């Protein structure tokens, strides 16, 4: 492996203090996927890196080292999308938690990286967050090998029929008859067809997409919790839940 990488586009997913004055930073990068670097001295009062190494800011990062834990040598950032209002910030934290918990380390995926940038940009300007999150989740699970077509019934080999009900199995996709692994039932054929057209306008479509994605992500997490969900408290009467 190369020892020295320079000017790699990437984002900070998470950072925590490391020893007295350093930060341990988890990055999501274009050509190296999710990696961890040590930013030496970045946690000292005078270091400009502390302000720069913030999530959601597009950066050009340089690092060196052969081991799993590399040393950050330079970071340049430009002002990126600002996730100012509450819900936008939560959505951003949710994306980062997904990547941090489920994306295997050091597996680059350029389309997912592009999707991440686009999702952040859209979250910063658009007000309807739910479809944006759902599309990111779909792109994400596809990268993990759990992609499926809404409008294809796997065991029957045809498209769903309006008026019929279907099952969902995270390992197989949409099914006409239940299996040992099917976790959802009574999915309306009509709504599946809407989702197949990438149409997330109606409330039933949003509900189903959310339920299915939630079941799938929980399946992938294997019992580990996703803490950013607790930020979206339903008590405030909005529907931008993850």
């Amino acid at each position, binding site marked *: 492996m190369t020892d020295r990488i320079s000017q790699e586009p990437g984002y900070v997913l998470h950072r925590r203090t490391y020893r007295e004055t350093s930060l341990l930073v988890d990055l999501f990068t274009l050509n190296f996927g999710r990696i961890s670097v040590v930013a030496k001295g970045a946690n000292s009062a005078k270091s400009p890196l502390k302000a720069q190494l913030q999530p959601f800011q597009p950066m050009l990062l340089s690092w060196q080292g052969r081991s799993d834990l590399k040393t950050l040598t330079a970071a340049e950032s430009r002002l990126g999308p600002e996730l100012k209002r509450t819900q936008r910030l939560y959505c951003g*934290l949710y994306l980062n938690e997904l990547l941090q918990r489920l994306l295997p380390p050091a597996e680059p995926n350029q389309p997912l990286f592009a999707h991440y940038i686009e999702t952040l940009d859209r979250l910063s300007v658009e007000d309807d967050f739910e479809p944006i999150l759902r599309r990111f989740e779909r792109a994400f699970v596809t990268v993990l090998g759990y992609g499926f077509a809404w409008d294809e019934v796997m065991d029957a080999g045809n498209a769903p029929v309006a008026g019929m009900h279907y099952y969902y199995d995270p390992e197989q996709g949409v099914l006409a008859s239940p299996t040992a692994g099917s976790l959802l039932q009574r999915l309306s054929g009509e709504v599946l067809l809407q989702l197949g057209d990438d149409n997330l306008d109606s409330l039933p479509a949003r509900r189903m997409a959310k339920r299915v994605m939630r079941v799938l992500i929980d399946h992938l997490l294997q019992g580990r919790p996703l803490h950013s969900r607790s*930020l979206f408290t339903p008590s405030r009467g909005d529907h931008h839940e993850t």
Partner: protein
Amino acid sequence: MAFSPLVDELVESLRCLPGVGQKTAQRMAFHLLERGRSGGDRLASALQEAMSGVRRCTSCQNFADTETCNICEDDHRQNGILCVVESPSDLLAIEQAGYYEGRYFVLMGHLSPIDGIGPQEIGIEQLLRRVTQENVSELILATNPTVEGEATAHYIADRLDGRDVLITRLAHGIPVGGELGYVDGFTLSHAFRGRKPLID
């Protein structure tokens, strides 16, 4: 390298301190044993007492020896203003600056989903209860200017939406005596957005 079990145990125990590795722990242990026996005794009893005696203030969550801490007990402090900070060291910094005379709430952390810290872990419900019970008129959100600190501030503000409380956030800007040339772009753009009329 093995010394006597007692020395080994001392070295190992000292390593639980932040920034103390094997070498430093050895140096500390030998120093205490060779030249600092009285200091060592004092440290031992202070540690013992602090570990069993220090608890969290039931009102502000800060460390305290008693049920409620000194600041919460102090009658001279202004009621109705509550400053929310992330850690006891933040509280200390504000106290040392000497400007603020209201009361505090110490979160002992910030919202950080990746670290598994949610609203429950930092005592948000207790904070909300206090805001209601003490009739707080201004809540100053002095969490750090990081993404997690912002998220925490926004979360608290969001939970208090619709209540008659003025919610303020500390300004971000250029340090006093600093030079613009050395300030990073983020701070500078925050400072620009937060600019004020010179004479008000």
